[in-house]
């Protein structure tokens, strides 16, 4: 609109000059003064700057002046026809700017001024970030199997700029959502900016919540049908845009006691849900070939991932019976019909890296670019007291396959280090969160139980290369990061070439919980924001902004 107007203005001024010329011709020996100018290029200049030429057709003396210092004009005066070049320097601001260029002429019969308005666009505004970070901290103790000890969960949203700022301190005083006060639980599916969970105050509904620095609000809920999931105890797979499948048991798993694995397919319509289907996963029948009578006692929840190429949900679970065979089980389920296509028993590992909370808080599996699924698992370290003293392994289910790749066993160069979380960063690189009290100097032998507690500073971060099988501990300034506590925490998020990693260190050594930013391409590590002292830093998530 503005542009058009300016063209019109210019055309009008030229016309005016032309009329003067016409009206004063012929019989007067004195040469009529003429002045006109035209520009071939638009008068709108890009932010980067650049030249603009103005052709002057005149028989008079003229000068050109500008009221802006960001324009250089050459030549600034002359006589007769000429081409004037106006050069704009780069606009480093985000706002556009205008300048008035004034042409003055003095001829034999007339003198006057005409002007030209130039507009330079501002630098392109960086797109407002479409995401932010949510930092979950707990008060009293780190999140765990039984949440006793934890007196509050707090979620704070932090802008990307602040998160990468080493001088920024994340405080929870008077800001953030008090999750316990909102009667929610920290374990939730985070999807498109919302939290999805079975709220603790309910034994019947599944809810969608908006959580921000002003608390938590309910967006939508639905009454679960016959498939009732317990708070924190279910696996999930996202099978389509806004469509989830939940898998879990409504009964706490216990040795010898029978339970069913239930499934529900739920569609999120924005402000409401639709229950698309529900039922029982008949894993007992499906495991009859693997165990006499089939498995009847299942882990309350397992781990689930959706493979889109063949519309399959891959569900990992364990047999909780006293006579259970070693290893884990992997079921391949048709996402459309929820029929079980195949179940395999993987005996090279003892357990998945975690089952209790599905992947509601921790990432235990990932898919690479080729849709090969990697599952973090663990084996008990020989000669140890407790089954939780493990070293990690990665197993793989290749794209299109209905069994694990028996030729692949990841992390097999290492006999210690329990893998707690995995985050795929592309290019065969994985960020691992590894628990290892012996490595962290808490235990004097690799088999000692000392130091395995979830409040001990027994864990570290390392980058694992799937191709080489090598693992490299993260270092900042040549030194390893302070060791962290938390067995049920996940302070790692990969986003757009960068991996954000948070520590939860021993504060008596002068360290605060800190965010480090790992650049996947360069391998460099920079320091970001810190958390106020006294909190257990439990989860770092990249969350989409909600409009």
């Amino acid at each position: 609109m503005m542009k058009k107007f300016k063209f019109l203005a210019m055309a009008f001024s030229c016309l005016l000059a032309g009329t003067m010329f016409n009206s004063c011709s012929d019989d007067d020996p004195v040469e009529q003064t003429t002045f006109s100018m035209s520009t071939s290029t638009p008068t709108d200049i890009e932010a980067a700057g650049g030249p603009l030429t103005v052709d002057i057709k005149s028989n008079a003396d003229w000068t050109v002046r500008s009221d802006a210092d960001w324009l250089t004009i050459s030549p600034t005066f002359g006589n007769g026809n000429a081409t004037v070049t106006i050069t704009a320097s780069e606009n480093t601001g985000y706002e556009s700017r205008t300048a008035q260029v004034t042409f003055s002429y003095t001829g034999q019969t007339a003198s006057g001024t005409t002007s030209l308005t130039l507009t330079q666009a501002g630098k392109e505004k960086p797109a407002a970030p479409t995401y932010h970070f949510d930092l979950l901290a707990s008060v009293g103790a780190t999140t765990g199997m039984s949440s006793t000890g934890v007196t509050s969960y707090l979620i704070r949203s932090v802008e990307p700029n602040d998160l990468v700022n080493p001088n920024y301190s994340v405080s929870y005083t008077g800001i953030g959502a008090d999750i316990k006060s909102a009667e929610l639980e920290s374990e939730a599916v985070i999807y498109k900016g919302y939290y999805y969970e079975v709220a603790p105050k309910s034994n019947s509904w599944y809810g969608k919540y908006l959580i921000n620095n002003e608390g938590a609000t309910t967006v939508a809920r639905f009454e679960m049908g016959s498939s009732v999931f317990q708070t924190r105890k279910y696996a999930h797979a996202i099978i389509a845009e806004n469509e989830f499948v939940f898998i879990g048991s409504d009964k706490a798993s216990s040795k010898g006691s029978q339970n069913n694995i239930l499934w529900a397919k739920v569609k999120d319509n924005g402000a409401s849900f639709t229950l698309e289907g529900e039922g029982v996963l008949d894993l007992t029948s499906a495991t009859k070939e693997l165990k006499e009578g089939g498995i009847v006692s299942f882990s309350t929840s397992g781990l689930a991932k959706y493979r889109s190429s063949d519309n399959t949900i891959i569900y990992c679970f364990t047999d909780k019976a006293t006579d259970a065979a070693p290893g884990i089980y992997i079921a391949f389920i048709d996402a459309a019909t929820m029929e079980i296509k195949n179940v395999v028993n993987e005996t090279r590992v003892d357990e998945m890296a975690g089952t209790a909370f599905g992947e509601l808080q921790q990432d235990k599996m990932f898919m690479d670019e080729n849709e090969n699924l990697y599952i973090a698992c663990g084996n008990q370290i020989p000669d140890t007291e407790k089954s939780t003293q493990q070293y990690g392994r990665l197993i793989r289910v290749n794209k299109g396959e209905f069994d694990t790749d028996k030729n692949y066993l990841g992390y097999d160069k290492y006999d210690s280090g329990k893998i707690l979380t995995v985050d795929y960063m592309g290019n065969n690189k994985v960020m691992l969160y590894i628990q290892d009290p012996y490595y962290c100097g808490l235990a004097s032998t690799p088999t000692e139980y000392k130091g395995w507690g979830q409040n001990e500073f027994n864990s570290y971060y390392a980058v694992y290369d799937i191709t080489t099988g090598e693992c490299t501990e993260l270092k900042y300034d040549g030194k390893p990061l302070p060791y962290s506590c938390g067995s049920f925490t996940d302070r790692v998020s990969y986003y757009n070439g960068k991996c954000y990693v948070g520590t939860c260190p021993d504060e008596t050594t002068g360290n605060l919980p800190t965010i480090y930013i790992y650049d996947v391409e360069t391998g460099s590590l920079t320091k970001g924001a810190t958390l106020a002292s006294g909190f257990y830093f439990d989860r770092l998530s990249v969350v989409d902004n909600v409009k």
Partner: protein
Amino acid sequence: MRTAFLLMLLLIATGSVWAQSHVTLTGTVKDHKGNALSMASVSVKNSVTGTYTNDDGEFMLRVKSGKLTLVSQLLGYETKELEIDTRKQTKIDISLTETGFNLQDVIVVGKSQEQQLREGAYTVSAVDIKSIASSVTNLNDLISRSSGVKIRTEGGLGSDFELSLNGLSGNSIRYFVDGLPLSSKGNGVNLSNFPINTIDRIEVYKGVVPSYLGADALGGAINIITKQEKTNFVDASVSAGSFSTYMADFNSQFVLNKTGIILRPQFSANYSKNNYTVHGVEVWNSETAHYDTVSRKRFHDDYFNTMVQLEAGVQNKKWADLFFVGGSFSQTNKEIQNGTIQSIVYGKAERKQDAWNVNMKYKKDNFLTEGLSLNVSASHTWDHSLTIDTAYARYNWNGGFQYKSSNEMTSRGRQYRHYKRPLTIIRANFNYALDNHHAFNLNYMLNRTGNKRYDTASDYYPENEIDGTFTPSKDLLSKQVLGLSYDQSLGKNGNWVNSFFLKDYINHVHVEQTDLAWITGSNKVPSSTTKNNLGGGFGSRFTIFDPLSIKLSYERSVRLPQARELLGNGSTTYPNLALEPEKSHNINIGLFGNLQPNRKHLIYYELTAFYRKVTDYIHLRINESDGTAQYTNVNDVTSKGLEGEIRYSWGRWLQLTGNVSYQESRDMEKYLENGNESATYKNRIPNKPWLYSNIDLTLNKYDLISQGDRLRFNLLYQYVHWYYLTWESYGYLPNKARIPEQNMFNASLTYSWQQERYSLTLTCDNVFDKLSFDNYKLQKPGRTFMAKFRIYLR
């Protein structure tokens, strides 16, 4: 330590050498009309010797022979002093003149010298029940009117409640009946269902608890004193009220003429459907696919409780001043509507408790030697509780349910969980008065609880449906508390009273259970432990003049975890076997006095400040994920507070009491287990009321229709300031959950006639039908009407 006790015993023994010859005084105390006055104190001035009159106004007192001054006191009457020479006179009749002040609540005043000496040095308030028993339908309501006392209930009749004294709550407070732990009546018997008619008065000890109670209390103690009368009587009452609530109490005494054997049969029963309406609950509307907010009646909250008791014994025999043996049976059935969260609804789960008890008590003054009195009691209770949680159903507020494959409360297999907790309590108390100014008291208390758990769900359900995580076990919890105290009365008129005490706590725990180790901590503690802890303190009271007295008390106390805390409640409260004893420093300072501008008007005031530093504070932590809970230690909690009370009486006709309590409890645990600084350091403990107030007005009209009748009107206003559910510093404050401010009015009207022989009471609680919560969103009943009719025949 033991040597010290032996030494003290030796001292007591040698003390008897100095004993002088004594005589027994008998007599009566009457008003100017010649009516017998019961509960009047009769004591020897400047000494610890004293007693009360019985219901016939009679008293008996053993004193040193010679000249002495006898003091008789009763609140509402002028104190009388008589100089007598016991060599000439052993029968004394005393006449007291009414001051026009009617006894409502008794605070220290009007007690015997002996009791003044014992209790006077501590922060104690006694609530007189006898005179208002007709008007009271629930003991909890009455006690909660005292300053510094807060009772938080989860719902209607029979629901769980938590009493807090001066900011400490729950099991920090010990309950006694005549000095013997209330738990001996069985776990089903508590303040809310204790038969009111049998109670004489209730002593509320705040903070420091005297050693003779043998308590390992931390927050204080509540001692229910039952009526001890010598004549035959029948006392019966029936009540009925809203939500199908019915209550009956029968309490009587028969003296068999020939043998002098006293029989005391007692019976009480309480029933309520508790089907009051809860507002703002949500039910799913499948048509709109949204939740509707509605009001619904509670549908699974029936409560039934009964207690039968028989005592037989003798009084005033040569070999015993008092000897009783007794037995009781109590039974409680309770349906469970909610856990700790109102939105989680149960429709089938229930809890049943029954308990058998046998007990004996023996009391003898001048036992073995002059001045030594012995008080022994022993009790054994077979306590059995059963939690039935077998329904594979998920109920909603419409009363309907959806099938699921686990039980209601714990999402495990079907449970028929039995807990047998046999309880043995033995208490022995020796009191020795060296002379009129010095007395020693030695108290021993043994409290032994077993905990046998087993499950019988397999009798009713197939093996694969019962809870596979459970393994039966037998645990044992044994506590012994040995206390020694020395009481002295100094100053001209005994206006300076001191009490010093030492307590030794021995705790023995033997634990077998190993299931759910990650929750109960059974893998963290050795199966058998014995721990010894020492505590002690003092109390002092100095009366400058009647309008101003000062009290100061201090105690280093230890509280051993109770069975319920350590071993859970069998349903929604999990055991925590790693629980540590609570230890605390308690300081109480108080000012109090009487102002009596003239005979008609009396003002009593009391101002108390307390400071308490608790390590390993035992605190009930609720797990919102599933509505279960567990007791855990909070390392360091400091609680301080102020409370004030003013009572005004205008003759017998009007009493007005107002009190305010303010408390500050903060988490003073600076460091976490792993060395990091705690984020909650210096934060106020959440989910705890900290400012509340009561205003209590009573109006009496005497001789309204006939001579000896009375119309009593009572109005109670209770205020509780709102408080946060979780730590107040963190998160966006405007959207944090709060337990809202409460303003409650309760009213009652009682008409009694023929000298309280018959009485009829109408009460209306929550007059304005306001929503009320003590715990987050767990609604209490709305407007509740009750009628009580009582007959008291003597």
